[in-house]
């Protein structure tokens, strides 16, 4: 109530929500720092952002340069780590070449450089995926929750229907839709420009958008539920009584107050987005060659798993690390942003 009274005194309610909001986030940050696994996750994520940004400097070789003479070669330590890969000089079949830090793939490309550049794809999906899900999910949930009644009912039925779509199948379909409908357009049209942008990003754009557009329903439900719970709060009533418009109430007063659960939910969904990308690249509908993606690398490696397991296992470890990092960070964020939830879920 104190907030409302103060707000009325000053005549502008939104001024007061700000310092309070900051203190909530500062508080959460303090709690997050105490969670060791979440900090570890954060460190892994920051490191991979740096790796993605400085990939050209970090990668020992060009990711797309094929040296066919060196195909499937590996340094000695890799053959020792995977005992089934017997080196050629010990009567096996694996050519030893120490100039590749973790070996070369079937086309003689440096695996380490490809993993380093592959960070870019996974991170792009990790950031664009939630962004496009939020772009659809947040306004949808906001409007449904705010309007209530029949409109809310109708909008939530749409969400229910979207839920009935098998996500993975819809993404595959969307990928085919995007690719072929932008491929055959005349230069200058919007679809053509989109297609060019996607090609310039190695196919990442459509993946991230497709994944986001098929995953917004959970977010819409969450936002709607949260809106319903804050809609009748005193500070909203106060804002309305002072003549704040609908849009102002939705975006200035409601949204900041429900941001916590949104951030948590999206952080915990990022691993799903990343694994969707990995899967799309795995079946050949993902990023376009020669752009390296961990999923695509695992797919190539899995084909030769009996002969060269290292080619599948190394990118799999990289993929695991980033997913693990986002999961732990999301878990930590949930505990930090909502202390009441700790230990319950």
């Amino acid at each position, binding site marked *: 109530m104190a907030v409302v009274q103060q707000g009325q005194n000053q005549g502008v309610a939104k001024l007061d929500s700000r310092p309070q909001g900051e203190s909530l986030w500062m508080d959460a940050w303090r709690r997050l720092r105490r969670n060791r696994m979440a900090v570890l996750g954060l460190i892994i994520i920051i490191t991979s952002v740096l790796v993605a940004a400085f990939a050209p400097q970090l990668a020992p070789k060009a990711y797309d340069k094929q040296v066919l003479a060196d195909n499937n070669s590996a340094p000695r330590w890799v053959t020792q780590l995977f005992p089934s890969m017997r080196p050629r000089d010990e009567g096996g079949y694996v050519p030893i070449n120490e100039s590749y830090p973790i070996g070369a793939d079937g086309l003689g490309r440096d695996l380490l450089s490809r993993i380093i550049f592959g960070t870019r794809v996974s991170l792009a999906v990790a950031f664009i995926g939630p962004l496009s899900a939020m772009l659809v999910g947040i306004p949808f949930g906001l409007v449904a929750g705010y309007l209530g009644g029949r409109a809310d009912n109708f909008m939530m039925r749409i969400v229910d*229907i979207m839920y009935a779509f098998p996500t993975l199948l819809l993404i595959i379909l969307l990928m085919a839709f995007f690719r*072929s*409908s932008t491929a055959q357009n005349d230069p200058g049209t919007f679809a053509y420009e989109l297609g060019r942008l996607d090609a310039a990003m190695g196919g990442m754009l459509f993946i991230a958008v497709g994944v986001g557009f098929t995953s917004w329903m959970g977010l819409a439900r969450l936002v709607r539920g949260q809106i319903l719970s804050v809609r009748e709060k005193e500070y909203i009533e106060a804002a309305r009584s002072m003549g704040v418009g609908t849009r102002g109430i939705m975006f200035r007063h409601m949204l900041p107050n429900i941001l916590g659960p949104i951030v948590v939910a999206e952080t915990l969904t990022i691993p799903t987005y990343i694994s969707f990308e*990995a899967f799309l690249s*795995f079946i050949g509908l993902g990023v376009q060659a020669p752009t390296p993606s961990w999923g695509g690398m695992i797919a190539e490696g*899995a084909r030769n*798993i009996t002969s060269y*397991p290292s080619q599948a296992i190394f990118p799999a470890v990289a993929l*695991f690390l980033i997913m*693990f990092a986002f999961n732990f960070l999301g878990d930590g964020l949930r505990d930090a942003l909502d202390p009441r939830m700790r230990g319950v879920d």
Partner: protein
Amino acid sequence: MAQFVAQRFLWLILVLFVVSAITFGLMRLVPGGPFATERGVPDTILRALEEKYNLTGTLIEQYAKWIGDIIVPRVTDDTFRPSAVNDYLINIRLDFIKADTDFRWMNFGPSLRIRSRTVNSIFEENLPISLQLGTAALMVAMAIGVPAGIIAALNRNTIYDYTGMGVAIIGVSIPVIIMGPLLQYLFGVQWHVLPVSGWGKPENVIMPAFALGFAQSALLARLTRASLLQVMNEDYIRTARAKGLSERVVVLFHALKNSLIPVVTVLGPLFAALLTGTFVTETIFGIPGMGRFFVTSVTNRDYPVIMGTILLYAGFLVLANMVVDITYAWLDPRIRY
């Protein structure tokens, strides 16, 4: 209750209708078609093909024809000749009414690319494989997840709890695309205990089912733990303890049943997730299920296969949720529709 079931059933039909319409639209708005080849097809042949495979007329006419073939049942006499465009999933002999009469339902149409095969024949041969894999994975997920969650909850804040939940978070981070190659390497290449890939023998199921089910078992473990902890704080548990019941009876007969309600509610979406997850698993382990057909049919524009598969899986999804809702009402006497 009967009204509730009827309502849900009507909803199922509406959902499938919308899903099929969206899929159809998405698929057909794209330029290019299933018969577009590099060399090009002579116009007359193309027209004959389009005529045969229901690709002429407006989109709405085509959609109506396609959905009509599926939902409208037919009663046929001995003049019925099965063919690629005349193949029904459900065929029931009605000899007791009249000789050579059959009740036929659900014609999903012919495959446009795999000549001489129909969508039904693909379903009949490949869907059981995907279903077997999905069911096996669900059993793995439940067999690991639920007991692990119970143990963690009963030993709250002990080393069992922490280890179990730590493993659960790691488990969630290991999708089948990582777990698959890892298991293949360890059990197939390194220790030679299980076949690396293939299908048909019982030992072929173990690795894919585990790879697919493990991540979901981690989710189930977390959910079971959380829900059991919540129930253990309820008043009626205190009452049961106050009555002097042993801890085992309290947990097994009072707490567990109610704590499993949230677990049951996720089983529907979980099975649906596992079923779509079989697509990935099948690709990794070389299993001849529905996955391979769907992916190639999308790149080939094999419309009937794409739409049939999506419709079927959407049907599974909605049906699974419906069953869950009904089970939910049955498990929790407080819920009444």
